[in-house]
């Protein structure tokens, strides 16, 4: 319970807030011609050109050290950027994982050579990463990972398969969780993280079409792929600890609150018209606003705790659970509100946006740890297991 009393209201520091106006001016211009149903893809939207533009402006890797091409700024600067990206529906999917997870991981665990090689290119919006965690039959149970990187004279020989790998077909690199020793029965032991150049011989990437018709997820097959010695990131056998830390810090950010916000804003514009206004719509607008507000306050407070060097793992899990629930509630309840009326004469662009978000919404509570896994983590934090 002490966890529940632990977060204090706070705000984003003024020097980081100051970034917002410039970012917004750029995004307003850059997304002006994009229809809402495309902007609704937000961090699933993919544009290498857009990523390069952001990189040129210094808006990728803002928290990374300047000596590696980063911005050397606080996590709150990134918070402001991400909030603006998501609310405008900017197509940030290309560099998203590299910026959010891979480059910070390399900074924390990588060798000096790895840092100098990868991080500046991530910051320029040129090197894109995917994360090879899940495998067939593994899902959230990462300890059962079976893909093997067997040490040999040149480095490691990689064999196995990853699945549900986001954007692998658009990325140059994967950071994969693999078994470097022992067997699947050893669970967490013997796991390591390796950087895989996806252009190497023996790698097949096969996109999986999702129910909305998009292809974000991929299957990736490794058939006797020879990795160099410099592929290992961090210590051999420490993969589990590294991955656990990595996941803990991606659960409470704006991306867990705003996946449906482009739809919500689009719908509000309709409700602001005489034809769109109804009693039920006013109530729904208020319900979403009054649920989002405490969530944002919690998310910012978790960010503050992270900035202070804490590890609010349970708080972050709480935010993600509540956040993704609201993200899924938004398309469901907007559909209900729109089709509660007699007339079906509704704006087509709004309906296309609704269609996309409705179809994408099952993924919100899958990515980054399923609902049940998070509830288990919270229960552990409560001392129940």
């Amino acid at each position: 319970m002490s966890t529940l009393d632990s977060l204090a209201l706070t705000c984003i520091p003024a020097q980081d807030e100051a970034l917002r106006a410039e970012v917004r001016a750029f995004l307003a211009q850059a997304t002006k011609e994009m229809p809402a149903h495309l902007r609704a893809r937000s961090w699933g939207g993919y544009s290498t050109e857009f990523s390069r533009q952001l990189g040129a402006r210094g808006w990728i890797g803002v928290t990374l050290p300047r000596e590696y091409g980063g911005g050397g700024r606080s996590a709150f600067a990134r918070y402001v950027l991400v909030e603006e990206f998501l609310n405008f529906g900017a197509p940030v999917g290309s560099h998203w994982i590299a910026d959010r997870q891979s480059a910070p991981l390399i900074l924390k665990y990588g060798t000096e050579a790895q840092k100098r090689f990868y991080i500046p290119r991530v910051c320029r919006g040129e090197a894109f990463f995917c994360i090879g965690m899940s495998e067939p039959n593994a899902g959230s149970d990462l300890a059962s990972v079976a893909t093997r990187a067997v040490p040999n004279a040149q480095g490691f020989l990689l064999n196995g398969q990853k699945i549900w790998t986001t954007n692998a077909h658009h990325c140059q690199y994967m950071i994969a969780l693999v078994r470097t020793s022992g067997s699947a029965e050893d669970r967490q032991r013997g796991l390591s993280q390796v950087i895989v150049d996806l252009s190497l011989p023996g790698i097949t990437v096969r996109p999986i079409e999702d129910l909305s018709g998009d292809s974000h997820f991929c299957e990736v097959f490794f058939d006797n792929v020879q990795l160099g010695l410099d592929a290992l990131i961090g210590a051999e056998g420490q993969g589990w600890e590294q991955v656990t830390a990595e996941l803990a810090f991606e659960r409470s950010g704006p991306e867990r609150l705003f996946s449906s916000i482009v739809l919500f804003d689009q719908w509000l514009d309709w409700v602001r018209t005489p034809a769109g206004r109804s009693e039920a719509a006013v109530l729904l607008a208020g319900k979403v606003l009054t649920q989002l507000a405490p969530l944002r306050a919690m998310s910012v407070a978790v960010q503050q705790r992270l900035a202070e060097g804490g590890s609010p793992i349970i708080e972050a899990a709480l935010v993600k659970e509540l956040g993704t629930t609201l993200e899924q509630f938004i398309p469901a309840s907007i559909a209900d509100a729109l089709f509660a009326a007699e007339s079906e004469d509704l704006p087509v662009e709004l309906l296309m946006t609704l269609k996309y978000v409705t179809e994408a919404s099952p993924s919100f509570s899958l990515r980054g740890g399923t609902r049940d896994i998070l509830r288990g983590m919270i229960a552990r934090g409560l001392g129940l297991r």
Partner: protein
Amino acid sequence: MNETDMFADAARAVLADRCTPGVVRAIEDRGLQAPEARALWTQLEATGLADAMLEEDRGGAGLGLAQAFGVLEQCGAHALPLPLGETMAARAVLDQGGQPQSGQIIALATGRLLADGGVHCAMVRSAHAADAVLVQVGSECRLLAVADARSAVQARAEDAALDWSAAQVQAAPQVAMAAGVDMRTLQAALVAAQMAGALGSVFRRTLQYANERQQFGRPIGKFQAIQHQLAVMSEQVFAARMAAQLGGTPPGGSGEGLQLDRLRVATAKARCSEAALAVAETAHAIHGAIGFTEEYDLQLYTRRLHAWRQTAGSESYWHRVAGEGLLQHQGLTLDLLRRITDVAPAH
């Protein structure tokens, strides 16, 4: 430890000691007629809490609602059946209006002026646990004695519908409402903070019960189904508490006294009311039949949560307020969210 925590600790110390489940039951049954009521109030007065929202040069501590959050939370956590938070706010309103009060326990209500000059309050919460009611009628407030009123029963024994004659109204102390303050909004902010405390109590009790109660050879908290219910419950409690803290935060993140931001209060009261329903439901489900009994203390908190949900506007009332605010707002929802949630740290 800052001053705010000191007040919360003072409240906790008195309430843990004196506001026992037996005392709560006695005051709920008989209001101020219960001997326990005055005894408890005397203890609370001795801490200075009731005057804490008065300015320092007026004998108070100059607390705003944000600084009083910890005290209000403790009131809810102990299901205090006396309107301490309401009295704190009422005394501050009266003092600012040149009508200082001391000693009286004061409830809050919105009333209607009758054709004959009398005032009718359809619902006075905790009427039987108060000496007087600060009633907003239009843009003015009047302090009216409970003992003088013609009283009609309300659904809860603690509450009443009250009527005062024109002569009583004329004779009553009167102050203007400060700009930007209305009784319903003020009451909602006070209630939300108390709900946050009660939600925490219900959650702690349920968690403890799940760890102790054995079924099928182990504590029920070891079953995944119960663990997940408690996890969801903790999310509700967590979010409601953050919302309640927002509710007491003055406009623009800074401000004085009883100034409130109506959208923040809407967030607070709507979110706490939603949580009240979900948390009470799950708590009772996990406790099983024992939680449904009079003698088991859980009901003191869950009944109160339902009552508070029905006080100063339910979630739909405040959803409408927030929804209207959002529809009048131009531009991204994000900007209204930022206005509601960006709060300068307290120290």
